[in-house]
Each structure stands twice: as structure tokens, then as C-alpha cells.
């Protein structure tokens, strides 16, 4: 990891610290989540983003709350990097009425428009078609917003991927397609499912800029993201970024991950991007050990508070089953 020197593409020191803060938050949040779930305090399907911290962190520093993202079940890192408040998020993981979605959506369906998290989906590939629509809205309004669609390598093989990239290219939409290639789709290795030598190659079929980047390198990721986000904001249309990363854990918490090559996994964990970037910041004098320790301590304190808040909150009442199916104000005949 060496900072590239092209002017305007390397994040400045404050931005580097900002990227690190987001990465540290994702890592700490993940460790807390696994601990709390393993302790039996919460029961939920949990898809760990450990190992993939860099991607949304380096990208989100280029976005504001007005920019949109659509993400997936394995998207808690994307949400955190985009700024979903910890308390609301944890309350949702806990299924409480204080959660982002009153507990009704749960971990796979976090929505938080205030921070631009418009859709979180459990259906592989479905973040992309909806992202196009948000981007179409921005194109009509001319509001300069960018929409990011996150998805996995496995998702690059489903029809919705293809339809979405084609439409975005034909309509020149301000959208960035970010494939987080963590080498696995559930228990299936990349090459068992994906014919492309690299997913970035598929951009050619849409006459769209496409790039494979080291998604665990904050500098490479930032540069690629900046290029794509700038292009989208300037009306230059969509980009496909294939961000290479690695899934540190099994598909879902509880998955014994026996199918994953041990050596490959150990190498990835040894190259953990979070401590690596931390060491870089200190080595380059961008932050001191004490400063970063303070950031991390603040995160832990915030997590303590969020978890406590979540566990102390009420569950929604069963009346919620009948609410939010349709708008309350909708004038219709008697309900079916």
C-alpha cells in the first residue's frame, strides 16, 4: 500500500483519517455483532463484512448524505460507511421498534433515507435495477447526486446485473456499480460460477468504463471511486468497479467455512486491511497511535451505547403487522 502521487486522486490526510475511522467502525461493529450474537443476546442471520472494510469506506468519503446507495444483506459495512446511526442500526438488528425500520425489516432490509441508504436487499442482484431508478431521478432533476449499487461477485452472474448495466449505459445514468469480489458466493468459489476472467471485463459489453482494483487498498479504491463518482456527477454515465477483496468468515455466522481454502484465507487475514492501513497512517505521520486509539475508543463507547439502547428498546406490537402494508391515507374500498 503506497499512496499514489497523481494530484487530486490521493486522498488528503484528513480524508485518509476519515477513511480509517469508517474502516475501524466497520471492524469494531463486526466484532461486537459476532460477540453479541454468539453470546445469545441477539438472534439474527448475520453476514459478516470483515475483510471488506476498505471498499465502502474509501468510496463513502466521496459521497454526501444526499447521494444514494442500494446495498445487500452483506452490506452493514456499506451502511456504516455511509453514516447510518449506530443506535438505529442496532435497534433494527435487535428487531426493536426504535430500529431504522421499526424492527420490521431486519438486518437484510435496513433502510435509512436520511443517510441515503435507500434499499438493502436479500435478493441477489436486485440492488442494481433500483439504483438505476434513483439515478434516473437525479438525472431528471439535475441534482448532481450519485447513486452507488453494491453487489457481490456471485451477483454478477444473475440477469438483473446485465439488464441494469445495459440500461444505465444506454441512459448514461449517474450510477456507480461496485462489485465487491470477495472470491465467494455462499459456498461457491468465483471460478466455479463466473466465466469472466475478471468481472470488470463485462463492462466492455456495455461500452462502459470498467476497472478491477485492489479493494483492500484504500488508495487504489479511492482513486477508482473518485474517477467513477466524478464521471457520474459530471453526467458522464455509469462505471463498473470490480473491487477485489476477501471474505474473512463463512457466508453467514454459524457457517463452518470448511469449503474455504485454509492457506488462502490465512493469507488474507494476515493482510487484514484495517491494521495495515492503521500502521500506514502512523508510519506516514498522518495520525498518531494515540489519535487512532482515541478514535477506536470512541467507537467502542458508541457501540456500548448502541447495543444497550437496542437491548433496552421495546419490540414493536403486533398491530405493526397491519401497518405499512399500504399507506394509511389510501382511499380504497374495504381491504381484502
Amino acid at each position: 500500500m503506497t499512496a499514489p502521487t497523481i494530484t487530486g486522486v490521493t486522498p488528503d490526510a484528513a480524508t485518509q483519517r476519515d477513511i480509517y475511522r469508517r474502516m475501524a467502525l466497520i471492524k469494531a461493529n463486526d466484532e461486537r455483532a459476532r460477540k453479541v450474537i454468539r453470546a445469545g443476546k441477539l438472534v439474527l442471520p448475520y453476514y459478516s463484512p470483515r475483510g471488506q472494510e476498505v471498499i465502502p469506506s474509501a468510496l463513502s468519503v466521496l459521497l454526501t448524505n444526499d447521494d444514494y446507495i442500494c446495498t445487500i444483506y452483506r452490506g452493514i459495512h456499506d451502511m456504516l460507511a455511509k453514516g447510518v446511526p449506530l443506535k438505529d442500526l442496532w435497534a433494527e438488528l435487535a428487531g426493536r421498534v426504535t430500529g431504522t425500520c421499526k424492527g420490521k425489516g431486519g438486518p437484510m432490509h435496513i433502510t435509512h433515507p436520511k443517510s441515503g441508504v435507500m434499499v438493502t436487499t436479500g435478493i441477489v442482484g436486485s440492488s442494481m435495477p433500483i439504483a438505476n431508478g434513483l439515478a434516473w431521478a437525479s438525472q431528471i432533476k439535475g441534482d448532481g447526486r450519485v447513486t452507488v449499487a453494491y453487489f457481490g461477485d456471485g451477483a454478477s452472474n444473475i440477469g438483473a446485473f446485465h439488464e441494469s448495466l445495459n440500461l444505465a449505459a444506454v441512459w448514461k445514468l449517474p450510477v456507480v456499480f461496485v462489485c465487491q469480489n470477495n472470491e465467494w458466493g455462499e459456498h461457491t468459489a468465483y471460478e466455479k460460477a463466473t466465466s469472466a476472467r475478471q468481472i470488470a471485463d463485462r463492462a466492455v459489453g456495455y461500452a462502459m468504463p470498467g476497472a478491477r482494483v485492489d479493494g483492500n487498498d484504500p488508495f487504489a479504491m479511492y482513486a477508482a471511486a473518485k474517477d467513477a463518482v466524478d464521471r457520474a456527477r459530471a453526467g458522464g454515465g455509469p462505471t463498473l468497479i470490480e473491487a477485489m477483496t476477501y471474505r474473512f468468515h463463512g457466508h453467514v455466522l454459524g457457517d463452518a467455512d470448511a469449503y474455504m481454502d485454509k492457506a488462502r484465507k490465512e493469507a488474507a487475514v494476515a493482510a487484514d486491511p484495517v491494521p495495515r492501513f492503521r500502521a500506514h497512517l502512523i508510519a506516514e505521520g498522518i495520525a498518531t497511535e494515540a489519535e487512532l486509539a482515541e478514535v477506536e475508543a470512541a467507537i467502542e463507547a458508541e457501540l456500548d451505547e448502541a447495543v444497550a439502547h437496542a437491548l433496552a428498546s421495546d419490540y414493536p406490537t403486533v398491530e405493526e403487522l397491519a401497518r405499512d402494508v399500504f399507506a394509511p391515507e389510501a382511499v380504497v374500498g374495504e381491504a381484502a
Partner: protein
Amino acid sequence: MSDTSQITILQAINKALTDAMAEDDSVLVLGEEVADPEEGGIVGVTKGLSTRFGPHRVRSTPISEQAIIGAAIGASLAGFKPVAEIMLMNFTTVAMDMIVNHAAKLRFMSGGQTHVPIVIRTMTGAGFGTGGQHCDYLEAWFAHTAGIKVVAPSNAADAYGLMRSAIEDPDPVLFIENLPTYWTPSAAPQPGARVPLGKASVLSPGQDVTVIAYARMVQEAQAAVAVLKAGGISAELIDLRSVAPWDRRTVLESVARTGRALVVHEAVTPFGVGAEISAVIHEELFSRLKAPVKRLGGAFCPVPFSKPLETAFAPRATDIEAAVRSLLATA
């Protein structure tokens, strides 16, 4: 069509879209061929819209139904009211994920933070020899899905009024257009008149039996009711207009009076819309019924190509007439 107070359903839908787009900048239209360079839709329902409202608001799309509904959903989340066309109802099969897992659920799953005010227009209808993959009647699937409404007008005024209401409705509405009746003229709507979603209309009052139909079957039922009337049988004809939610009050009030009911649709009978209506009528009016509710639907098979089979597929006026007579013969 010399009578200017009559227009076709096709014209009525075009007018509803035009009026809605003129009044509200947030209304968008997208779908295959919908813009004017592509002739404003395969039969011209959206003709003139792109010329008038421009290519930002009216867009022809690639043949990509998932992308079409996805774009509509996304734009709706950002404050627009898109009307998406899925050319034929059979093609909803490639977009069911977007419709059912997303459009219908986002309000609930987000705890009411977001909602999806889209209209999905789709055409269907046997009669043109298009065979097994072009004229299915799948309304029951959507009616069985919480979070989406389903309408199916049978005349121009309802088509106009329901389209206006559907566009304004804050939730997704599937708007089913019946191809064979597109060109049938009927009374023109009052400009701007809304027909509320979920409200049936009583087309002809009657005492002996209630006939419940929607879409093209209303025309067949009207013919049957006229013949029955000539034969001294007074049938009340209810045009459901909205399939989900359907107007329980109007239907139950009618059947409570007549004691007999027939439900007619083109979709195959088993597990169809008629089953729900029949079940509810029995549940609510058990002791008032003089005979069990009867259902008439399409033959239990894909829509066949060969003309005599295609003609025999869906209920006709004579079938409705016979069913009513057999209902009256019971008990």
C-alpha cells in the same frame, strides 16, 4: 366513431396519462416502445407523451423488464410517480422479483420510511391467435401479494378514472388492460374524474342473482344479462373494476339481497380470483345464500392457438346465461 361523447379504452388511458403528466411533473412513463420515435407503444397507448413531455419523462427502454420495474421503483423512492409498462402480462414473469419482493414490500420492510408509488401497466387478452405465452391472466398472483393493488377496467370512463387514481395512489398498482376491448367505444370520462381504487360499480340492478365480473368478461356478462332479462330473469351485474382490494361491501350487499352469485373471469378457475370471492361470500352470507356461489373461468390449460379452441377457452355470454339459469334452478 361519430359520437364524440364516446371514446375507446385505449384513448381513455392515453388521455389519463396525458392529463396526469400535464398536471404533475413527477409523473413519468417508461417501457418498451413507449416513446414516439418507437410509435408510442405497440398499439399506441402512450402516443404523443414523449413529444409533449420530453425524453426525460417518457422513455423507451431495452427489452429488460427487471430493469424497467427497477427503474420505476428507484425513481419513485426519489419522489417520482412512474408509470411502467410491461408490454404483456406474461412478461411480468421475468420481473416478478422486482414487483413482489421490492415494489410491494419496501413500505413494510422500511417500517414506512419509503414507499413505491408506481403504476405497472400491462396488457393481456386472448383473441388474436398469439397462443400460450401472450395472454395469461395472472391477476390472482398479485392479489395474493400484500402491498400491491390490482385494477382491471372494462370501459373507457373507468380506465381513465382508475388510471388517475392509480397514479396518485401512494403504493404500487398493477393496471391490467384488456387488449381485445381496447378499441370498444364507451361513454367518455369527465376530464379529471377519479374512480376510487377498491370500489366496484353496479352496472345493472337486479333481484334474482348477482353476476360479478371484470375486464372483458363484463361485456360478455352484459350480453348475458340482457338475454336473461328478456327471459324474465333479473340479474344484478357488478363490475369489480378493482380486483385487489375488491369491494366486499358492494358485493356482499348485493348477494345478501339476491341470495345467488356467479363470479366470472378469463383466468383459469382453480385458485383464481373467483375462489376468494366465493369463499368470502360463503363466509359472510352463509345463511342467506339460496345456492352455492358459482364460478366460471377459462379452461384449465394454457391459452391455445387454434381458433375454435381459443374461442372455447374463456367463458362466453351463453356460458354465463347457462350458469345463471342453473343457479336459479338450484334450491
